[in-house]
């Protein structure tokens, strides 16, 4: 109690000992009744299947298999308790305290941020922990058949059972500390729990971003289902990737916890402090490189000819450039605060003068290092892609950095420039969810286009989110991204077909739009030679170097007689990201830099427009 006054508080709020015991007891009863029903139905049905009653040995076998099945359900329930109930309980406690004003009451006390954050994590989910404790004991009993009254052992070694518990607890700590941080940052918003859909959504995002795969690889729906049906994975079978994953989870959990501890006491301002933000980017870079080092086979998807790493590095870079908003926003906040303090006679940190220059440079260096260290030549089918990825890294980070820092600086304290955790994960699903689906991006042959497209998408999205200063942007974006996440892979199939066709055509024609002189309607013309003869062709020259002859309008509205796959023009992706349309056309000329430069200009123009609407900061009146 002395260290954690929240323990007594949440114990009382949860209704005290009786209610907790009742809940845990009810859970145990349900599981045991479930076990008994499954066992007796198996015994009862045995004569129907075999025409004779089961022998004692067969009864033992049925008992053992029923226990194993029950153990799967117990493990599944544990996942539910630790990965869902715990984060939700933490969030609910913070939101309740925020609504009632008790969060401010905590802030007035001399409790450190660490103690308050620890209190939320350790005490608010007390009911979930009680249920989990009951489940662990039940599972252990099923493993070792401690009672030898009802059951035979489930066939799972006890050390594997408890090893699995350690994994689950680590994941729970990660989920709970992330939930705590998000709840403290935006307690009035209800969108954060929607993040769970991304973790449970099949792991498509995780496939694209090696660092996320290492960090969250155990939290996909398939793993959870596997846990439910087959029990928790054992440590012994997983090897170095499991250990690296566990270490990454611990590192991120501690970082989120530290950021939450800061956020408990600091009202308003950025999601992360400057140091925490920098550490976040650093950790992500390290995890990305480690993931590529310890799990190289995971990124070829079993196909040695699949050049997936360039796409994954591009995606990692995109995610990193989004994460970079955290230290950038924190730097802006800190500079604002230190300038105000200086104006009112407090000592000013010398570092703050150079934030606007040093932080973007530092972040650029971090991301360049990530791409360079992750570009293992032995993992590339086409080495030029590694070079292109490395070359584009500085541009990719300096553009958002250059626009976001002054934007953040101009905002008054209390306004939000911070990316919520959600946007960290959301932009990537815009791209097709599997690397092989992304291969059409590389049709120019220089390997730079995938990166350019990913970057332009991410930048648009980032700016979009930043511009929607209202925190509802996060909720909205989760919804949009979820739809796109599901829809885009389907579309990608069609687009793939388009490019397969196009590769077989001349190098110069990529998108052809035809207007029938007879009816004025627009038609797709992939295989209709007669129609093609009448059509007016809009040709974009490919990267072969003939230059852009014309710019195609999109072919989405092609007439009913056009090929359906052909209608899914690559410019569809440009339409997803309006600014990206122009970039796509430029980038297709073979050189990514005009595209990136145009993106920078458009981004700057976009931010500039938004900028004009901002209130001007009040200059601090300096003491006479």
């Amino acid at each position: 109690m002395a260290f954690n006054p929240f323990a007594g508080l949440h114990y009382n709020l949860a209704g005290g000992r009786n209610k907790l015991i009742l809940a845990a007891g009810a859970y145990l009863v349900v599981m045991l009744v479930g076990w008994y029903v499954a066992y007796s139905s198996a015994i009862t049905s045995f004569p129907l299947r075999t025409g004779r009653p089961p022998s004692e040995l067969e009864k033992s076998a049925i008992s053992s298999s029923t226990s194993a099945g029950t153990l799967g359900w117990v493990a599944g329930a544990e996942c539910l308790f630790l990965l869902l109930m715990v984060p939700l309980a933490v969030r609910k406690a913070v939101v309740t305290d925020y609504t009632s004003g008790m969060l401010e009451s905590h802030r007035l006390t001399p409790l450190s941020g660490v103690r308050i954050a620890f209190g939320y994590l350790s005490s608010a989910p007390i009911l979930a922990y009680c249920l989990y404790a009951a489940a662990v004991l039940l599972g252990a009993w099923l493993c070792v058949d401690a009672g030898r009254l009802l059951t035979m052992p489930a066939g799972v070694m006890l050390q594997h059972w408890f090893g699995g518990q350690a994994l689950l607890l680590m994941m729970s700590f990660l989920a709970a500390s992330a939930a705590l941080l998000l709840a403290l940052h935006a307690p009035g918003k209800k969108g954060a729990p929607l993040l769970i859909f991304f973790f449970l959504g099949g792991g498509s995002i995780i496939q694209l971003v090696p660092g996320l795969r290492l960090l969250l690889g155990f939290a996909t729906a398939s793993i959870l289902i596997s846990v439910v049906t087959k029990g928790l994975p054992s440590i012994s079978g997983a090897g170095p990737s499991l250990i690296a994953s566990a270490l990454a989870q611990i590192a991120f959990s501690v970082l989120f916890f530290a950021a939450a501890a800061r956020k408990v006491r600091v009202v308003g301002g950025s999601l992360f402090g400057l140091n925490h933000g920098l550490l976040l980017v650093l950790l992500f870079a390290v995890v990305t490189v480690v993931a590529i080092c310890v799990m190289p086979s995971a990124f070829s998807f079993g196909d040695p000819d699949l050049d997936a790493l360039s796409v994954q590095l591009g995606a990692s870079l995109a995610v990193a450039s989004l994460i970079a908003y955290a230290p950038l926003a924190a730097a802006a906040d800190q500079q604002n605060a230190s300038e105000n303090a200086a104006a009112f006679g407090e000592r000013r940190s010398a570092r703050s003068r150079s934030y606007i220059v040093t932080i973007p440079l530092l972040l650029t260096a971090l991301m360049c290092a990530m791409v360079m260290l992750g570009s293992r030549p032995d993992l590339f089918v086409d080495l030029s892609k590694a070079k292109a990825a490395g070359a584009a890294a500085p541009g990719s980070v300096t553009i958002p950095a250059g626009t976001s820092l002054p934007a953040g600086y101009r905002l008054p304290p209390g306004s939000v420039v911070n990316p919520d955790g959600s946007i960290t994960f959301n932009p990537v699903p815009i791209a097709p969810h599997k690397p092989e689906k992304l291969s059409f991006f590389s049709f120019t042959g220089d390997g730079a286009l995938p990166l350019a497209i990913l970057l332009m998408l991410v930048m648009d999205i980032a700016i979009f989110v930043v511009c929607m200063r209202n925190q509802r942007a996060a909720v909205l974006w989760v919804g949009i991204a979820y739809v796109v996440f599901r829809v885009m892979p389907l579309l990608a199939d069609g687009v793939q077909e388009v490019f397969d066709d196009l590769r077989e055509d001349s190098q110069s024609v990529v998108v052809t739009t035809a207007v029938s002189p007879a009816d004025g309607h627009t038609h797709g013309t992939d295989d209709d030679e007669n129609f093609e003869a009448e059509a007016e062709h809009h040709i974009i020259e490919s990267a072969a170097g003939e230059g852009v002859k014309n710019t195609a309008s999109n072919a989405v509205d092609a007439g009913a007689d056009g090929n359906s796959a052909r209608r899914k023009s690559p410019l569809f992706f440009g339409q997803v990201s309006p600014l990206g349309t122009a970039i796509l056309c430029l980038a297709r000329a073979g050189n990514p830099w005009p595209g990136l430069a145009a993106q920078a200009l458009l981004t700057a123009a976009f931010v500039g427009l938004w900028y004009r609407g901002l209130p001007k900061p009040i200059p601090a009146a300096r003491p006479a």
Partner: protein
Amino acid sequence: MSATLLELDRVRVRYGSFLAVDDVTFALRGGDLLGMIGPNGAGKTTTLRAAAGLQPITTGSVKIMGEPIHPDRADSRAPLGFTPDTPAVYETLTVAQYLQFIGDCYSMDRPLIKERIDFWLDQLWLRDKRDAPVKSLSRGMRQRLAVARTLMPDPFVVLLDEPAAGLDPGGRLQFRQLLASLRDQGKAIIVSSHILADLAEYCTHILIMERGRVLRFGTVADISGESDASDTTQYAVTLAARLGDVENRLKSFAKVRAVRVDGEKLTLELPRDKAAAAEALKGLIMAGLPVVEFRPIQVDLEQAYLRSGIAQVD
């Protein structure tokens, strides 16, 4: 002279484009009790929250006992107690459990917590509600519980936002006594309230706000005096008996600008300077009038507020 306990220096708070608090500056010493008044939306609550370090300020500085508030330092706000206008409580806890939790948060020993719970429940007339769930308390009782929470750790600076809003007349009277007692203990206190008559009774200072700006700040006497825009002061004179023709006799006095007679009670309008009052009193006595009382008539706080030029009146 007591040390400055709370100091706000050119504090500005913005919500987006809205400037909620604009250039608020004042300082309080131990024993000062500041009444903060103003229409709804004047910025009183935001100012109090900024003073408590709960509202990020756009520019300016807030110092408690000479030290700027650093939100990330746990002990930065420890000398400060703040009661919001809506009491922050845990509904399902009992009164004692709630205060026990607060005591734990301030790392008090169990015997000290028990002692303080007993003391403040007694002081705030909640003794018989000790084991009642918070959700069963009336609004006034919750308000008193919130004040008990604020005073549990014995803060040096006490900020109370509308503390008497839910109190009945008896409760208000007792609450005034409590505030006066806290003031006499040397605490610096700010009370935001719309009950001006109460403020006039126990406050040492008054701050009038409108649209985020400070319109008036000073002692109660100063504020009351400032509100009278004329260059005269009214004095109440009570005579031992009713006299005839007293009005004409008084009008002959050089300094008297106007006279009103109501039986044995007279009202004189004199120039603002105190020498004029002394001369008038001397004249009354020299004229043989049986004066039993001679005092300036203070413009009350309500009038001061109404005359301060505030457009909206609650």
